[in-house]
């Protein structure tokens, strides 16, 4: 199974929600759509699900043109960010509903529902109604409805966004194995880079109604194709600044310069944009973080076991993210250190140079 988009465009009135998009999503792995709110993840999913009309282009599912097919005929499942279940039906009836509509035999429905419920630990709740369940159980009911159907494609639109932290981790760990070996194309939309990394598979980075980069998740994390892709796939936001390259030296300002090695050293001299993830900008010198950055601390935060600091170098704002609890004095000057081997260099047109 695969879903193939060929030059697909979505328009509502004069506004283009999805710009021409060509993309092939395969079964057997997670296909993550990663992008900020409003970047077009949900719009793209609705196009693939057939909930919104395609303005231009074609959509193929398993080689069959489904562009004009109704959602029902595409044999798909969709799980939403908030928990959508039929309110006055029991969990059993909810899970069974797509099978009932399809007119399946009663005994087979019973078997399939019990199997899905067992997989999602819903067996004790089968006779209850959705309102009597916790958020996590409600979402598991919706997931059970999605897998019981054995559809060709399963769309998960930020399914964990409304769950609390603990449940989220639990369910996220279960998700890949739930869909493994079902032969369905699994599309998972999220706005969190960490989630994409944890789920693995392939990731399509989305920005402003476009897929800016698509490929194996780890691969595109390590090699963003352009500045936009690098920004989408970083949380906190990636640090970026203008440098001038001359010979094998990259100069940020009068205080800071470093020696380029490898592919970066071979670039033509001139201005570049350097980008580095916050976790390679540290509050103290280490073996790898060797380039000093003289900044002024603006804001600091401690979340979990990480400390982040926002600081300014001249007009530019930078972020440092380090393990452990570090204390900074707000407004004071502090010397941060970055790892020059983790820098990305982008040319004036925004594409990756080295």
């Amino acid at each position, binding site marked *: 199974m695969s879903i193939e988009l060929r030059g697909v465009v979505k328009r509502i009135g004069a506004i283009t929600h999805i710009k021409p998009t060509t993309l092939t999503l395969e079964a057997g792995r997670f296909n993550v759509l990663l992008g900020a709110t409003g970047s077009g993840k949900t719009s793209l999913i609705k196009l693939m699900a057939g909930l919104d009309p395609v303005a231009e282009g074609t959509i193929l599912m398993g080689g069959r043109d489904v562009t004009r097919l*109704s959602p*029902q005929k595409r044999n798909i499942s969709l799980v939403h960010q908030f928990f959508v279940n*039929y309110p006055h039906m029991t969990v059993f009836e909810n899970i069974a509903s797509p099978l009932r509509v399809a007119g399946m035999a009663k005994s087979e429905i019973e078997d399939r529902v019990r199997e899905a419920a067992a997989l999602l630990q819903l067996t004790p709740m089968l006779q209850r109604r959705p309102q009597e369940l916790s958020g996590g159980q409600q979402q598991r009911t919706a997931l059970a409805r999605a897998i019981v159907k054995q559809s060709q494609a399963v769309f998960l639109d930020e399914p964990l966004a409304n769950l609390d932290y603990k449940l989220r981790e639990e369910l996220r760990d279960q998700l890949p194995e739930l869909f493994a070996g079902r032969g369905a194309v699994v599309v998972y939309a999220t706005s969190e880079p960490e989630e994409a990394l944890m789920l693995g598979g392939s990731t399509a980075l989305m920005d402003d109604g476009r897929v800016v980069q698509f490929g194996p998740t780890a691969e595109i994390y390590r090699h963003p194709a352009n500045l936009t892709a690098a920004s989408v796939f970083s949380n906190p936001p990636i640090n970026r600044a203008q440098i001038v390259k001359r010979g094998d030296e990259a100069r940020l300002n009068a205080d800071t310069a470093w020696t380029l090695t490898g592919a970066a050293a071979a670039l033509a001299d001139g201005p570049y944009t350097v980008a580095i993830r916050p976790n390679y900008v540290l509050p103290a010198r280490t073996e790898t973080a060797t380039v000093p950055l003289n900044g002024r601390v603006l804001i600091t935060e401690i979340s979990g076991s990480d400390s982040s600091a926002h600081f300014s170098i001249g007009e530019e704002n930078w972020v440092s993210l380090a393990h452990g609890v570090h204390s900074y004095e707000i407004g004071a000057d502090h010397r941060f250190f970055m790892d020059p081997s983790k820098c990305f260099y982008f040319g004036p047109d925004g594409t990756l140079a080295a």
Partner: protein
Amino acid sequence: MKTVNQKAWFFVLPVLALVAFNALIPLMTVVNYSVQETFGDNLFFWQGLDWFEQLLRSDRFHAALGRQFLFTGMILAIEVPLGIAIALAMPRKGFWVPVFLVIMALPMLIPWNVIGAMWNIFTLPGIGLLGYLMNETLGIPYNMTQDPVAAWITVVVMDVWHWTSLVVLLCYAGLVSIPDAYYQAARIDGASSWKVFRYIQLPKMRTVLTIAILLRFMDSFNIYTEPFVLTGGGPGNSTTLLSIDLVKIALGQFDLGPAAAMSLIYFAITLLVSWLFYTLMTREQAK
């Protein structure tokens, strides 16, 4: 030792005073009248439960009560399904939403006696638009001042015209609060529009529908102004609903004792039926 702050009573007193003045004292006055025979010069004679007994055995009361239940039953049977249907047909977004909402709200904004007067003129044979149309143009004899059936149809249609909007607006509020995701789920499942109504829209409207039915029951059961202005209870006694009969006894005949007893029974029935409705309709949810 536990300290008790007696000042809290001062915050409860205004409410107590208000409720006493607008509910308890008038109600107790009615109770007082209902067990006595009243003459001029404030002469009272103890009657015990005589008035209640007399009333419960009176054919006149039974007839009025029957008419009342018939009226309420008819308007509920029409207004609830009609209100749901109109709410379903109304646009959910776009330019027409406020237009429809205002049109829907209009009948409810008109003073009740004006509604009675409007419909009275509207249906007059030979003068009123409807009366003229029926009699002169279509040739169907229609005169609600003489024909009991015509009078009933007019009273019921007037109430439907006046109050269906309430059901519409409440149901509409329930409908627009259903997130799009539910409809999407139904489309993916391939559910028919009847199933969407039965399994998504109706359950989601349930709470507002309970409120709508309760309000319509209480209001229609206590209706007075519009039919009084429209038909005055006639022709004969054919549209004399409970409240109209009550006013006739109390102010027309000045029988304060029987009128007070009737008020109390009337009140008890309204309370009982409302409670029954509410318990039946919320029992399912509580399960």
